[in-house]
């Protein structure tokens, strides 16, 4: 395999500051709710107060009469969305079923379902009037309690159709082969519902520029997917829908689905014939835009006394809504993470009267890793083996699920780097024996993996007359620093300083790119950017005609507005002349870049290991993460600063998952009772210790030409079990239901 990175002596790998950093810290960056449009008015959503049933009557008179109100829209008077008639899930998320059709009929499918939108000249007036809408319901018996309705769990539709689907039951070797092992354990694990709470609230401005021409400034992760969905909804050509998401204040997956509030705003804008802005409240973020589903898991695991795995059975059931099948990859990693002759996986979904979940960072894998990596720790303890040593004894150099070689796998390097940095040698084999004053000290580790995915994408490159190259692609940047790393990749691909390169994204009119999700943006869009840069050079080469004909396009050196050759500086041409050659047009290309057949030959994954040291107070049960080391094998690191940021954020997310986060429903009402940031605890700064990040930083040139593999998801996968394992090491208490709050430890 080619170990030679594509980029030598360039800026790839540098800790380059974000190209939009200044815009963000000065407030100049415009987020979707911040566009000032003439005539803009404000919407506010009214949510249902029952979980299931029908609206008997809805009295909007008082709201309509309230000052400043332009319209109150409900299922009674809403204009009909043409695509609702036979709306099934569009191209985006993997869900089967029918997305909620807002204001379509009187049915209530979950608590706080949007049932009306009030449009007024100010936000305050819209909000006030929303409080005046009076609704009578006919309630049905709802089901929101997961445990009480476990018997309703079902095989997801796509697994029923296709037994080869990743969601289908799977057995390698003997069914439940772990049972034959001399040492075996069976455990159940639960993670509660975790809520998406990015800093930026979900928001949209919907603007009908003409009766068949829609522009939305929308907080989404897929501008193209959103464009397609709304075009279908409204029966208008795709190019008539413009979706702008230049800046996104964190999304973590909740912008991967188009939600009812977006269509509510579009309906409202059409009704009042003015641009309508709709920003969800923090409480509405808990019910209207997806979440990490409550998931029950059971693991059976067995090994020989010398620590060779005999089998693992991993079962999981995740909740979904009654109207969409949301599925995720909760059990798949168990098939490929460790060498084991017998593997069985089972995945079910449990429809409840709640809104539809959506991927949340490291989606199913993070959930699954909590069970698998906890179970590995439990079995290591039962075998009296160091948990890292136990993992090493079951290390695999090929993918045990399909026998293919890994494209690259540097997980052992991660173990070693992490163990050194955390001081793994200080870990006591006997739990509860390491004390510092009133605190018990423990160490833990957890492994994470996520597919190194690459899709197809297009990118455009245009060289301006002043020598700047502008690249465009309809991807988004939900925070990882996509724009910055694309500039770095393009700068090196062009051999230009990054200051002379610009990258534009977040606009559906740009060349097609997939959603930002699944840790695949650098692999996918980066490949397209690199290809576009090569194509641009190729075109310049052709336009230069005989001047460069002795060399190759790649040898072209661009300095300001002068082009020359790397090995022959005297062969040069002014860019202005090439523009003349190009009929007076700036030179521009659009290219598409696709993966090849590498997936048929290789298994491709990123890997991470989290190591943590925790202190647990003996009397109060408080857990403090004292130190965390996050190591990743993620291929080429294009920017150590932004990549490091990803790892830090993921680690803090892992602290939340392990110790603080969990949304509670009161099943009597089918309604969340923890729905603000005072009751739903995300970690605060004081919860985050010093976190050290270490990358293997070796390219994987099978995944893509840059050698990248993806970071966003592995940054969190495995972090929560690392903490849970450390808590066990500190206290001897195994907490199998997250979050690990003080009450569970005293």
């Amino acid at each position, binding site marked *: 395999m080619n170990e030679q990175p594509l980029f030598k002596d360039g800026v790839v790998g540098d800790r380059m500051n974000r190209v939009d950093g200044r815009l963000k810290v000065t407030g100049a960056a415009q987020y979707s709710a911040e566009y000032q449009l003439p005539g803009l008015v404000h919407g506010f959503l009214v949510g249902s107060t029952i979980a299931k049933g029908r609206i008997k009557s809805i009295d909007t008179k008082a709201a309509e009469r309230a000052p400043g109100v332009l319209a109150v829209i409900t299922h009674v008077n809403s204009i009909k969305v043409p695509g609702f008639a036979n709306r099934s899930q569009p191209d985006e998320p993997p869900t089967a079923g029918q997305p909620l059709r807002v204001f379509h009929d009187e049915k209530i499918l979950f608590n706080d379902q949007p049932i009306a939108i009030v449009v007024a000249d100010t936000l305050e007036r819209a*909000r006030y009037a929303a409080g005046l809408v009076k609704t009578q319901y006919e309630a049905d018996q709802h089901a929101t309690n997961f445990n009480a309705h476990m018997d309703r769990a079902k095989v997801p539709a796509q697994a029923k159709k296709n037994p080869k689907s990743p969601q289908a039951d799977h057995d390698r070797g003997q069914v439940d082969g772990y049972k034959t092992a001399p040492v075996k354990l069976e455990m159940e694990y639960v993670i509660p519902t975790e809520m998406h709470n990015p800093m930026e609230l979900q928001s949209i401005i919907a603007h009908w520029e003409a009766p068949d021409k829609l522009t939305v400034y929308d907080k989404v992760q897929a501008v193209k997917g959103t464009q397609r969905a709304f075009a279908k909804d409204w029966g208008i050509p795709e190019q008539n829908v413009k979706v702008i998401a230049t800046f996104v204040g964190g999304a973590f997956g909740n912008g991967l689905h188009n939600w009812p509030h977006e269509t509510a705003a579009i309906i409202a804008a059409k009704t009042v014939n003015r641009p309508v802005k709709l920003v969800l409240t923090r409480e509405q973020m808990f019910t209207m835009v997806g979440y990490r589903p409550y998931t029950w898991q059971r693991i059976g695991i067995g090994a020989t006394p010398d620590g060779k795995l005999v089998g693992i059975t991993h079962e999981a059931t995740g909740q979904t809504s009654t109207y969409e099948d949301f599925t995720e990859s909760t059990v798949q990693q168990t098939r490929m993470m460790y060498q084991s002759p017998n593997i069985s996986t089972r995945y079910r979904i449990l429809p409840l009267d709640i809104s539809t979940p959506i991927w949340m960072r490291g989606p199913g894998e993070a959930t699954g890793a909590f069970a698998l990596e906890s179970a590995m720790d439990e079995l290591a303890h039962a075998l009296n083996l160091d948990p890292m040593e136990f993992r090493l004894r079951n290390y695999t150099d090929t993918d045990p699920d399909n026998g293919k070689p890994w494209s690259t796998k540097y997980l052992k390097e991660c173990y070693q780097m992490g163990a050194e940095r955390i001081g793994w040698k200080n870990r006591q084999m006997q739990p509860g024996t390491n004390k510092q004053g009133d605190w018990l000290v423990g160490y833990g580790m957890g492994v994470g993996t996520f597919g190194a995915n690459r899709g197809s994408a297009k990118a455009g490159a245009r060289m301006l007359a002043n020598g700047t190259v502008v690249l465009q692609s309809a991807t988004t940047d939900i925070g990882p620093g996509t724009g910055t790393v694309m500039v770095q990749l393009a700068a090196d691909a062009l051999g230009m300083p990054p200051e002379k390169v610009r990258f534009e994204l977040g606009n559906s009119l740009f060349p097609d790119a997939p959603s930002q999700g699944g840790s695949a943006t650098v692999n996918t869009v980066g490949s397209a950017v690199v290809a576009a840069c090569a194509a641009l050079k190729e075109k310049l080469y052709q336009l230069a005609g005989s001047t460069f004909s002795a060399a190759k396009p790649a040898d072209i050196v661009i300095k300001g507005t002068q082009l020359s050759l790397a090995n022959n500086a005297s062969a040069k041409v002014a860019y202005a002349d090439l523009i003349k050659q190009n009929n007076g047009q700036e030179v521009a290309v659009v290219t598409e870049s696709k993966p090849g057949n590498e997936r048929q030959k290789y298994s491709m994954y990123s890997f991470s290991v989290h190591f943590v040291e925790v202190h647990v*107070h003996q009397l109060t049960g408080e857990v403090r993460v004292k130190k965390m080391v996050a190591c990743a094998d993620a291929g080429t690191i294009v920017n150590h600063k932004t990549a490091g940021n990803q790892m830090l954020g993921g680690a803090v997310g892992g602290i939340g998952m392990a110790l603080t986060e969990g949304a509670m429903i009161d099943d009597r009402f089918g309604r969340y009772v923890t729905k603000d940031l005072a009751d739903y605890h995300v970690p605060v700064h004081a919860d985050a210790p010093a976190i050290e990040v270490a990358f293997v930083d070796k390219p994987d040139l099978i995944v893509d030409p840059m050698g990248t593999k993806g970071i966003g998801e592995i940054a969190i996968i495995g972090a929560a079990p690392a903490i849970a394992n450390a808590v066990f090491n500190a206290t001897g208490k195994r907490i199998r239901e997250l979050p690990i709050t003080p009450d569970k430890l005293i």
Partner: protein
Amino acid sequence: MNQFQYVRPSKPKAAIDARAKDQNSQFIAGGTNLLDLMKRGVMNPERLIDISRLPLDKLERENNTFRIGSMALNATVADDKQVLEKLPLLAQALNAGASAQLRNMATIGGNMLQRTRCPYFYDTALPCNKREPGSGCGALEGYNRMHAIFGFSDKCIAVHPSDMSVALVALDATVLVSGPKGDRRIPFGELHRLPGDMPQKDTTLEPGELITAVEVPEGPFTKNVHYLKVRERASYAFALVSVAAALQLENNIIKDARLAMGGVAHKPWRLTEAEKSLVGKPATEATFQAAAAIAMQGAKAFKHNAYKLKLGPNAIVQALKNATNVA
């Protein structure tokens, strides 16, 4: 949020008059609690009387007594040198509350009158006797993880969320109020009430009464004090249970003791019997454990807060240990 009028009187008397004139008015100080409640439709005053700029923000010290104006900010008091030296327990409790941003806005008067964080109280779609008398107590059979283990009634099992108040009740503070009927002084322990049959009434204040100041005697509790707050994250969370402990020691013998708990009742919960049990004893873990056992007498838990029966005494012991450096 409803529409409201807004006035900002410049004298306390004018504020009291304005409030007396309008049943549906409310004082607003820092607004960090009231505005949240208004946005959620829990409180719907038609008139806000902004008292934040009344000249009631002074911090004075006279005759071994601190007099802290009700409009003094939480942050100002917590950082005051004299408070840190003479009333360290109060400073610790203040700093354990909320976040720096909130403490910069919140006033001393507003802090003691902040309303419960019971989630049913906050959601107008759910039953709550405190918000809507007679609608039922949602928490009683519901999600009552944060709720009371002392002094509750079958009408309401909410807890008072203030950290500062736990220290003030331990330190024998006195609340100074002015109202339509004149001025009066309320011992801090009598400011908040138990829910009984009227959970909608948090305090013993008469309608329209304005808190002008709180007086705190200096006392001997300058050294062996600790405010322990057990919460679900390291900062910026309400207490599962908190303990204010203050001891006066002489040769490791406890001469005088103050002990109170937060997060356990509808009011800051002073533990007088436990205090008595400490006096005259050596400051040892065994002494502390005995006091903790006395403190917990009569505690009763609900479905989701049984952990408090164990966390409570543990926290008392730990707070006393921290106050005395008993290992």
